[in-house]
C-alpha cells in the first residue's frame, strides 16, 4: 500500500491568503469609516418618533403647547408612525388623517423638510422588503403631495426589514415593524 506524495499548493496559498486577510480587516475599516453621524441622526429620529407616539393618548387635552408645533401632543402631526398590512402599501383609513395632517403642515411650512422611512416586518425576503418599504414610503409621499407638500420637502428611504423597532417573531412585533416613519 503505497502512499502517493502530493504537494498541497492550494493549502500554502490559503495560508498566504489568510495572512492577507488579517491585514484586510484593518485596511477596510480605515478605508470605509462608517458614518457615525448617520447613525446618530437615525437614532434621534427614532427617539423623537417614539416620543410622539407615547404622548398622543394621554395628553390630548393639553393646551398652550410651547414646544415645536410638530411636537404638540394635541395635533395629529405628533404621531410620526403609521402601520401597514402584510405585503401591502396602501395607507389604511385609520392613518389617512395623520398623513393628511403632516401634508398640511408641510404645505404651510415650505422650508420644513422630512424624511419618510419605509419599513417591513421580518417575513419575506430582504431585498423584496427593501422594495416593499420603498413602496410604503412612496404611498405616504403621494398623499403628502396631494396635500400641497412639494417634492423638494420630501425624501424617501426604505430600510426594508433591516431596522425593526420590535423584536420577536409574532404578529404584535410584525405589526409594529410594518411602518412608515416621518423623520423631521
Amino acid at each position, binding site marked *: 500500500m503505497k502512499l502517493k506524495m502530493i504537494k498541497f499548493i492550494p493549502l500554502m496559498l490559503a495560508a498566504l491568503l489568510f495572512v492577507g486577510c488579517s491585514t484586510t480587516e484593518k485596511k*477596510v475599516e480605515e478605508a470605509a469609516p462608517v458614518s457615525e453621524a448617520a447613525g446618530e441622526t437615525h437614532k434621534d429620529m427614532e427617539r423623537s418618533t417614539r416620543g410622539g407616539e407615547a404622548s398622543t393618548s394621554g395628553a390630548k387635552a393639553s393646551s398652550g403647547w410651547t414646544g415645536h408645533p410638530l411636537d404638540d401632543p394635541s395635533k395629529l402631526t405628533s404621531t410620526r408612525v403609521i402601520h401597514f398590512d402584510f405585503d401591502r402599501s396602501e395607507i389604511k383609513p385609520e392613518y389617512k388623517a395623520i398623513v393628511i395632517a403632516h401634508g398640511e403642515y408641510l404645505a404651510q411650512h415650505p422650508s420644513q423638510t422630512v424624511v419618510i422611512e419605509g419599513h417591513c416586518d421580518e417575513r419575506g425576503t430582504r431585498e423584496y422588503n427593501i*422594495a416593499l418599504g420603498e413602496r410604503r414610503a412612496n404611498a405616504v409621499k403621494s398623499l403628502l403631495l396631494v396635500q400641497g407638500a412639494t417634492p423638494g420637502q420630501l425624501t424617501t428611504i426604505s430600510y426594508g426589514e*433591516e431596522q425593526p423597532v420590535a423584536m420577536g417573531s409574532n404578529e404584535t412585533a410584525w405589526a409594529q415593524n410594518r411602518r412608515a416613519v416621518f423623520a423631521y
Partner: protein
Amino acid sequence: MMIINPMKRLLMLVVLLVSQIAHSAPLMIEITESEMGALPIAVVPFGWQGGGQRPGEDVASIVDADLKRSGRFKTMPSKDMIAFPHTGAGVDFRDWKVLGMESLVVGQVKPNGVGGYIVRFQLFDVFKGEQLAGYSIPTTARDLRATAHHISDLIYEKLTGQRGAFATRVAYITAIAQPTGRRKIALQVADADGYHPQTIVTSTEPLMSPAWSPDGLKLAYVSFEKGRPSIFIQEVYTGKRQRVASFKGINGAPAWSPDGRKLALTLSKDGNPDIFILDLARRTLRPLTRHYAIDTEPAWSPDGRHIIWTSDRGGRPQIYRMPSGGGKAERITFEGKYNARASYSPDGKLITMVTQVGSDFRIGVLDLASFQLQVLSDGTLDESPSFAPNGSMVIYAIKVKGQAELAAVSVDGRVRQRLALQVGDVREPAWAPYSQ
C-alpha cells in the same frame, strides 16, 4: 447493518461535535430523513505519532462531519467500531464487512519537526479490500482544519465522482447588539462549516446582500453606511473596494454575471424598482425590466443567457425569467403565494428560492425540467438560500427563538444541519464559488 424503517421519516439524530479548541463553535448535524441510499463509511479516529501535545483539531471528526452533512454518506460512530487501525497494514477488512461498511478511512497525524504536521490517510473499498486513495499531506497547526476539508473533498470525489465542496467558504452578515443599544453589523467570511470567521466590513448601518464574484476574489454588497444604500465591490483578500452604484432610491440585490464582467442589480432611480445590468468595465447601465411592479433579486443562469428575478407584477411575489439581453418576461413559479430570491444551481437545472408554505417561509428547490417544487427546510422564517459550488447542498438562514442562524441542507433534503457560529444574528449566507 444499516436497516432504517422507511416509514420513519423523522429520524432525529443529533450529533454534537465538540471541538477540542475552546474558541471554535459547535456544529450540529440533524439527520432529518431516512438515510437509505447513503453510502456507509467508517472514518477511524486518526492516530497520533509523536510525543507531547496532540494537535488541537481532530482531523477524523472533521472529515466524518463533512461526509455526513453532505447527505451522501452514513458515517459510523467511533463507539460502534471494533478496531482502530491507523494504517492499511493494520486493517482487517472482515471487521468492516461485518459492520456493513462499504468504505473505510484510516490515517495518522505526526509532527513534521518544524512545528507543523504531516497527515497521512488511506481510503479503502471494504468489499474489494483495495486502496482507492492514499495521501501524505504536509500542513500547519493553523491549516489543519483546511487539510481535513481537503481530505473530505478527496474522499467525496473518489466515491461519488462529484467534486467536493468542503474546502470552500461562505460570506454572511452578522448583527450584534452593542451596549450603546446600537447594533454592529458586519460582513464576514468563514469556512463552509462556519469555522474561522473573519470580518471584512463593519458598520452601524445595514449591510446586505453579499454576492461572490465568479472567481471568488470579490464580494459585491449593499451598505447603508452613508445613510442610504449603495453597492460596493470589495476585494476579499486586500480589502480594496469601490462604490459601483449610488443612485437615488434603491441600490440593491447585486448579482454577478458568470463571466464576472457585469452586475445585475436593482435600482429605483426612475421611480420604482427595476433590474438593470451594469457593465463593470465600461460603467454603462442597461435597463432589463421596465414595469411598474416590484422587480428585484436578479440571478444569472450559469450560461449567462437568462436572468431570473422576483416580481409582484402578478399581484404577489413570484419568480420570472427573461433573456439577459432583454426580452419577454416569463413566470416560472406557480405553486405557493410567495416565491422570492431565486438562484440557479451550478448546473443550471434547479433553482432554489424562498417559498411560502402556509404561514411559513421555507427553502424550496424547483426542477426547471419538470417544474416540480421540493421544500427542503421546515422552519418558519427560512431565507437566503445559496447553492454549494458543486450543487450538493444549500446554505440558508433560519430563525430559532428570535435568533438568526445559518443552516445547510443536502439538495435531496435528507440531511440538515445548523451552523451555530457565534453570538448575535447571522444571516444572508452566500456560498463562495471554487477559488480559481
